[in-house]
């Protein structure tokens, strides 16, 4: 069931929320059990067979976690074996559904047959669920999970607001909330929840979805081997970046809002990433819960163990400004690139995702390298930050947009076609209809090589205006976390100490003006529900 469907908004959601308040007010356990059952139904909606896949996996994970808890401190070696078995089981489960076809089709490629993505048989949200389960096992082994029952664990895994596309949550941040949640009607939770949900819905259906038909033909043309005019290539790159931006931002807001109906605060997942002034900054704002997972469970253990080994061998380790190149390469560059490779593969079984991950890994390394080298070249940190922040922003923005092309383009060669287009290899054309309206300017443009072409002028105008509006929102507007900061919309979010004027003006307050405004946002969102479209992140 899609969050952005009438059956969800008018059927499933009210039923589940009201049922939860009624049952929860009698007995908390009933409310929570109702929530688990509803989540299972939510998961089963598309293909009931999904439940047959996820249920055994939950039971096996629960059994392993119990075994881990029992052996725990007493027999650490045995506990380690159980943990590894659990991680291997989960990765195999994911691997079977997500990567087997890719491995097979990669072989096919060698024989000249095109490869087919594996989405069709992929159980929904399996990538998210798998990571969450692995994190849970590691946490149990590390003694970070105190007590848990099958009911607790089931709810933790299945909780429908974050089931399909995150945020990837930790047991230790969720379960205390479920235990403390009042499980009954609370006006603040409903008001905040409904606001977040409809902000998210509007982002998804009004801002993100209409970009899709504008960029799709451009990617199709690139995939068919057609070169694009510079303007078209940039529309493809910016258009898709903004589409996935508002799609994921909208989804994340909706997830926060839905959880809030049940008195639960999810962690921050999306925090105006296009405003980032470095690639490192970008990854602390885009899909925050994935970055957090990858850092805690892959990057940190890898770096920690590598560093200790280097130290034991008597070689210099990472020493900040005085780091040697070999130390940088082996202790920072290598783990970073490997981690981002995992991230790429996690997003999809395909060459484009792998290269996308590697590319971001390399960008992160450049960023880290510069951070270390910069103080020697430009020692005045304060001045540097003020002067270079705009440069950092532009470089980051261009890198992210260029890399996003790879996320959308079906093949690496299509990506290359678009990149070449973006730097003007295939020239610059303007639709003839627009060209003829330019008057004297047309002559100037011809002089620098701009050609008229028989492409759609109205399409160009629509794309440009839409991209312009979305860019302003993404780059200049405070996000929902800031607007609702006073009500802790996501775990740990606090109001700004010195809010900007724009934030002050837009701060959410439960008054009539906001109620009317939100009603319009909700109405506009629901009237745009016409064609259902899946969230881009649901395919991962």
């Amino acid at each position, binding site marked *: 069931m899609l969050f952005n469907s009438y059956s969800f908004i008018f059927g499933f959601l009210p039923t589940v929320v009201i049922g939860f308040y009624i049952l929860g007010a009698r007995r908390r356990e009933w409310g929570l059990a109702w929530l688990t059952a509803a989540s299972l139904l939510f998961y089963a909606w598309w293909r009931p067979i999904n439940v047959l896949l996820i249920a055994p996996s939950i039971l096996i994970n629960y059994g392993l976690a119990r075994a881990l808890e029992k052996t725990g401190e007493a027999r650490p070696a045995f506990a380690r074996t159980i943990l590894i078995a659990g991680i291997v089981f989960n990765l195999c489960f994911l691997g079977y559904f997500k990567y087997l076809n890719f491995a097979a089709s990669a072989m096919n490629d060698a024989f000249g047959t095109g490869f087919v993505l594996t989405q069709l048989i992929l159980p929904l949200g399996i990538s998210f669920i798998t990571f969450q389960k692995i994190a849970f096992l590691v946490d149990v082994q*590390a*003694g*970070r999970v105190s007590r848990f029952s099958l009911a607790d664990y089931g709810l933790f895994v299945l909780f429908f607001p974050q089931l399909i596309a995150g945020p990837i949550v930790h047991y230790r941040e969720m379960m205390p909330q479920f235990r403390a949640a009042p499980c009954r009607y609370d006006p603040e939770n409903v008001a905040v929840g409904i606001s977040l949900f409809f902000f998210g819905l509007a982002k998804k259906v009004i801002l993100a979805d209409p970009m899709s038909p504008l960029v799709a033909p451009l990617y199709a043309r690139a995939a068919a081997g057609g070169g694009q005019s510079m303007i078209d290539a940039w529309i493809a790159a910016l258009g898709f970046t903004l589409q996935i931006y508002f799609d994921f931002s909208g989804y994340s807001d909706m997830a926060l809002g839905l959880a809030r109906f049940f008195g639960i605060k999810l962690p921050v997942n999306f925090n105006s990433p296009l405003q980032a002034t470095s690639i*490192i900054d970008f990854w*602390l704002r885009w899909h925050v819960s994935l*970055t*957090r997972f990858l*850092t*805690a469970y892959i*990057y*940190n*253990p890898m*770096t*920690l163990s590598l*560093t*200790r080994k280097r*130290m034991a061998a008597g070689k210099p*380790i*990472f*020493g*900040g*400004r*005085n780091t040697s190149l070999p130390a940088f390469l082996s*202790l*920072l560059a290598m783990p*970073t690139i490997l981690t981002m490779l995992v991230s790429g593969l996690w997003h999809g079984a395909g060459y484009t995702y792998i290269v996308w991950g590697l590319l971001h890994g390399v960008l*992160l390394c450049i960023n*880290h390298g510069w*951070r*270390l080298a*910069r*103080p020697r070249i430009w020692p005045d*940190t304060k001045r540097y930050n003020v002067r270079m922040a705009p440069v950092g922003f532009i470089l980051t923005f261009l890198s992210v947009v260029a890399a996003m092309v790879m996320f959308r383009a079906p093949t690496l060669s299509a990506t290359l076609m678009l990149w070449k287009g973006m730097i003007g290899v295939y020239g610059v054309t303007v639709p003839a209809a627009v060209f003829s309206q330019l008057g004297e300017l047309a002559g100037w443009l011809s002089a620098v090589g701009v050609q008229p072409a028989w492409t759609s002028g109205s399409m160009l105008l629509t794309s440009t205006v839409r991209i312009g509006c979305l860019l302003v929102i993404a780059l200049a507007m405070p996000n929902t976390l800031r607007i609702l900061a006073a009500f802790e919309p996501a775990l740990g979010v606090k109001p700004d100490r010195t809010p900007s004027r724009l934030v002050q003006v837009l701060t959410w307050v439960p008054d009539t003006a906001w109620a009317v405004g939100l009603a319009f946002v909700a109405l506009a969102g629901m009237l745009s529900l016409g064609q259902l479209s899946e969230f881009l992140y649901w395919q991962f």
Partner: protein
Amino acid sequence: MTEQEYLAALSQILSDILGDDSIALTMDTVREDVGGWDSFSYINFIVAVEAEFGVKFRIADVESFPNVGAIVKAITAAPRR
């Protein structure tokens, strides 16, 4: 060593890593308080601390130190190699 001496030593290590000499950690400092102290430089900091004091933290603890004070306590409690 006193708490203050530990904090001074940790501040020095972090200053070196972040290239920012104005850092002064307290027992209550959390990562978000220090500009540029992201998750990536955090692990470098931890390993540098391990090297400086000859201790070895558990990876689980590394992930869950709530603030700088917890790191100081872990150093004093950890077995010396």
